[in-house]
Each structure stands twice: as structure tokens, then as C-alpha cells.
């Protein structure tokens, strides 16, 4: 079978589950090579974390330019690997970074691009959910090397163990990639909770929390869930922007999404409407969020959530 590329996803220097999800899709269409972009001498330690998923090999590219120049440097490395190794396709995670890298690689290699796929078939047909999840679209790249970005948490990852062959590759940094320099970097500190986009359950709070996220967090922790927020809550400074769900925040599609004190504006829905199950607590029976709820409680979140938390505690003991 021919080779297919997957760009590895790391956060906090730890490999993310998304890498195995991408590999699971990719393995349907070819023999998977995972590309690891690393700082000088950091590659081996990162590659050693590639231990699950249908992965045949790991290709390490080490350069200080990834931290210095970001997206354009990553795109240069991948574009050159695509040109020399001619993979059948490349799969990248649908994050802000992943999509921008994909966009530049598409231009550099004159290839078609599909973003935000929720599945990829053996013939590289990508499935996308559009218009707030109301329509399923199947499409295929028709020119160049298909470049497809896939949303985290959309496919069931094959987590069987693997022992990939590891090798190294070099690339030449273009002059234009050096035009904007990262002069300082402050990664978001991750708390103990699961990553929003990877979580099986997300519990979100909105303006209805009135700034008090304690009941939301308590319920989330009992369910092992990530905590999300509406823009009203992040704008008010009640919760960090990195937790915003929606059009201009993160897109999540967990097994269960619990919206507390959130009205369900179209921009919020854009980031959570494809969740498999939606549960709502809102005191306004007319709130639009009820239109997409599988289960809704018309009530005060400060009464309903603590009782629900009590119920979960009781069911555990």
C-alpha cells in the first residue's frame, strides 16, 4: 500500500488522542507515517510517545524554526516532505494551527483542501457536517495531494499498540516563512480536567451562572467532564477564553453536552450542535437552546445542578 501522512498532535509535550484518530482514518487509505515536528534534540522523546494506533513509521523533523516562526515553518517542512515522498494524502487535526498549516501546504503543493471532516473513507472521501449539523456533505479532493483536516473526537480511534520504525528528515526553511517572528509564547496552562475538544462529556456555563461556575465545575468533575463557557461568560471574564465554545471558540462534539444558563445563540450552537446528546438547564422555557435539547430542565441552575450532582454522587456510592 502507498504511504499516507498524518501530522502528529502534541499538547504540553504529550501526544494527544487525536493523532491515533487521524491514523485510524488514514490507515484505510494507506500505510501510515506520522510526522513529528520537534525542537532540536526533542524528536526522539516525542516519537517514543507514538505507541498506539495503526502506525507503520514515524518521521521526525527537528528545527528551532517551529518555535520561532510557527505555522509557516511547519507548512514548509510538510510541503517539502509531500514533494519528495509523494504520499497519497495528508491528514491534519482541525485546530487553528492545523487548518492554517493545511492551507499553506495546499497552496505550496497545488493541492485541494477539505477542512473539518468528521470522517474519511478508504477512497479519501471526506464527510463533513455543515449548517449546524443539519446537512451531511461527502466530498473528494480532485487535484494534487488531498489535504484533509479532521475534527478531534469524531472517529473512534483504533488504539491497538504499535512499534513504528523511526527516521529523520530535513527541510529548508523558506525566506518568506521567516517574515514574522514569535518573540514570546505563553501556552495556556491546562488544569486537571480533560481537554475540551477531546472530552467525552462537556458541561458548559453561560450568563445564567452570573459568574459563579462552582455548580458547573462540581457537576463536571463528578462526570469526569471538561468545562466550557459561552461567549457571554468569557467576555465577562468569568471563565478563560480558551474554554469558549462556539463559532469563535472551540468546536466540540462530545457524547454528552450539558448547557447551563446558556440561551443557545446561533454562534454558540455552531460549536456544539453536533454533540451526540444535549442536555439543557435554563429557567426560560422559551430559550432557543431547548430546540436542540434531548433533555431539558426548565429551572434555576443553582437548584437543579446541585441536586443533579447529589444524584450522581448517590449513584456512585
Amino acid at each position: 500500500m502507498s504511504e499516507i501522512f498524518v501530522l502528529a498532535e502534541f499538547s504540553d509535550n504529550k501526544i494527544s488522542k487525536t493523532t491515533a484518530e487521524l491514523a485510524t482514518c488514514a490507515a484505510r487509505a494507506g500505510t501510515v507515517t506520522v510526522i513529528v515536528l520537534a525542537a532540536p534534540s526533542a524528536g526522539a522523546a516525542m516519537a517514543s510517545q507514538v505507541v498506539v494506533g495503526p502506525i507503520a513509521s514515524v518521521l521526525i523533523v527537528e528545527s528551532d524554526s517551529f518555535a520561532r516562526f510557527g505555522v509557516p515553518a511547519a507548512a514548509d517542512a510538510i510541503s517539502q516532505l509531500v514533494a519528495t515522498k509523494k504520499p497519497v494524502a495528508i491528514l491534519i487535526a482541525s485546530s487553528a494551527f492545523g487548518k492554517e498549516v493545511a492551507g499553506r501546504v495546499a497552496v505550496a503543493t497545488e493541492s485541494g483542501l477539505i477542512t473539518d471532516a468528521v470522517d474519511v473513507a478508504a477512497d479519501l472521501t471526506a464527510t463533513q457536517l455543515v449548517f449546524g449539523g443539519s446537512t451531511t456533505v461527502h466530498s473528494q479532493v480532485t487535484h494534487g495531494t488531498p489535504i484533509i483536516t479532521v475534527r478531534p473526537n469524531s472517529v473512534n480511534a483504533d488504539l491497538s499498540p504499535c512499534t513504528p520504525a523511526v527516521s529523520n528528515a530535513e527541510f529548508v526553511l523558506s525566506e518568506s516563512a521567516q517574515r514574522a517572528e514569535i518573540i514570546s509564547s505563553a501556552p495556556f496552562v491546562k488544569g486537571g480536567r480533560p481537554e475540551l475538544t477531546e472530552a467525552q462529556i462537556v458541561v458548559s456555563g453561560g450568563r445564567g451562572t452570573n459568574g459563579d461556575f462552582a455548580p458547573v465545575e462540581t457537576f463536571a468533575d463528578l462526570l469526569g467532564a471538561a468545562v466550557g463557557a459561552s461567549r457571554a461568560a468569557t467576555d465577562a471574564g468569568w471563565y478563560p477564553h480558551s474554554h469558549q465554545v462556539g463559532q469563535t471558540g472551540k468546536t466540540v462534539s462530545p457524547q454528552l453536552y450539558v448547557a447551563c444558563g446558556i440561551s443557545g445563540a446561533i454562534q454558540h450552537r455552531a460549536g456544539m450542535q453536533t454533540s451526540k446528546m444535549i442536555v439543557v438547564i435554563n429557567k426560560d422555557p422559551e430559550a432557543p437552546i431547548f430546540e436542540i435539547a434531548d433533555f431539558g430542565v426548565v429551572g434555576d441552575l443553582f437548584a437543579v445542578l446541585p441536586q443533579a450532582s447529589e444524584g450522581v454522587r448517590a449513584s456512585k456510592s
Partner: protein
Amino acid sequence: MKIAVCVKQVPDSWAEKKMVNGLLDRDGVDAVLNDLDEYAVEEALRILEAHGEGHSITLISMGPERTTEAVRKALSMGADDAIVVTDPALVGADALTTSQVLATVISEGKFDLVLCGTESTDARMSVVPAMLAQRLGWAQLTFAGSVVVDPTSSSVTITRVTEAGVDTMKAQFPAVISVIEKINEPRYPSFKGIMAAKKKTIEVRTLALLGVSATQSWSAVKDALPRPAKLAGIKVLDEGKGGAELVNFLAEKKLI
């Protein structure tokens, strides 16, 4: 300083949307200025206001003929003039074609900065600004939560805000910048602005005029199917047992 702002006309976010022959049906819905692009227009206005007279803002947009309506709105906020590329061959154009057309217009204009929104609310790809930077060979300063321009040294510094964290980035002109919606509060067009916008020039160009040949197809939609409508959910009024009922539901669905 010459600034270009890329603005797109999109279907109203609230409109029911459907696909016809693999393309978004744009005729059946109200069209508006992509609201995320208003932040780019506002930021361009603020950059110019901070640095005095002698600068200009040109809007650049690609889309169907009625795109001029959305462009008028951005002109009424205070931009100086606009270039709209419209051509039957561009119907259904994707980001690769869009970025090619926009880059061609931009490269003819001797701009110092190009500002964009982070996403068009219909395509939702968030790739056009990065593609523009790649095509033009310019600095890429995307997802900016703040922009500081220093015209004397021809440099610009931004904070890049993404799900991964916050970076500070610096570059010399020319640069492509995209701004996030936290950066500012876009102004409402004033009555004076609306009247003035009526007299501003919107230059309409076709592909032939641009010297860009018929566009390549990059990807194709095989089918677009409406998903089965969600069954109406259960709605209970909390009369003291709402939380317990919620837990029962989750237990029934084996979610806890």
C-alpha cells in the same frame, strides 16, 4: 500607509441554509457582511486614526454581484473605496481559488497591510488569511487579539490568540493580519457615514480584467444530504425534582 481589508458577503447566520447541486444556495437567503470581518474593518480604522492623515483603506471582496451591498456597509463604517471581483466562473470557488483571486488584487495595490476576519461564517474554513500570506510571500500575523503598528519602522506586533495559547509576534510590512472578535467593538455606521458611502467608488472587476484564467477545480462535492431531523426532546419543569430527573435520564442513556 495603505491598508486593504478583505470582506466577504455571507448568508445571514440565522437563515435556513440548503445545498443545491453541491453548492450553498445563496439566492434564497438574506446576505450580510460577514460579521467577523467588521472587526477587521474596525481595526483598520483604528490603526489609521492612531497615525493621522494620509493613509487609506481599500476593501477587497470576491463574490456575486450583490456583494456590493455588504461592501457598502463596510464603506459606511469609514473605509475609502473598494474593489469587488465578480465573475460567473467564480461561482462555488473554494479557498484556493478565493485566495488566488484576492492575492492577485492585493499584489497590484502596493498595500502595507492586509486585514481579514478569522473566519467566514458560511465557509468556516479559517484558511484564507494563511493562504494569502503564503501566496504573497508576506508575513503571516493571524488570530490577532491586539495589533500595534509602528509606521516609522514599518513594523507591526500582534498577540496571536489560539486554543493553544497566546504568542507575541512581530514582522516588517507587508503583512497579512487576521483579527479575532475580542479585539475591538465595531462601530455602527453613522448617518453621515452612510450618506458618504453612497458616493464612494466600488470598482468591479472580472477575471479577465484581473488577468486570472479560468479557475481550477480543487475538490468536488459528491452529495449533500439533509440529516434526519432530531426528534423533539423531553422537557421537564423543575418543581423540586429537576436535578434528579436529569440524573435519571443520563442513567437511562448509560451516560453515567
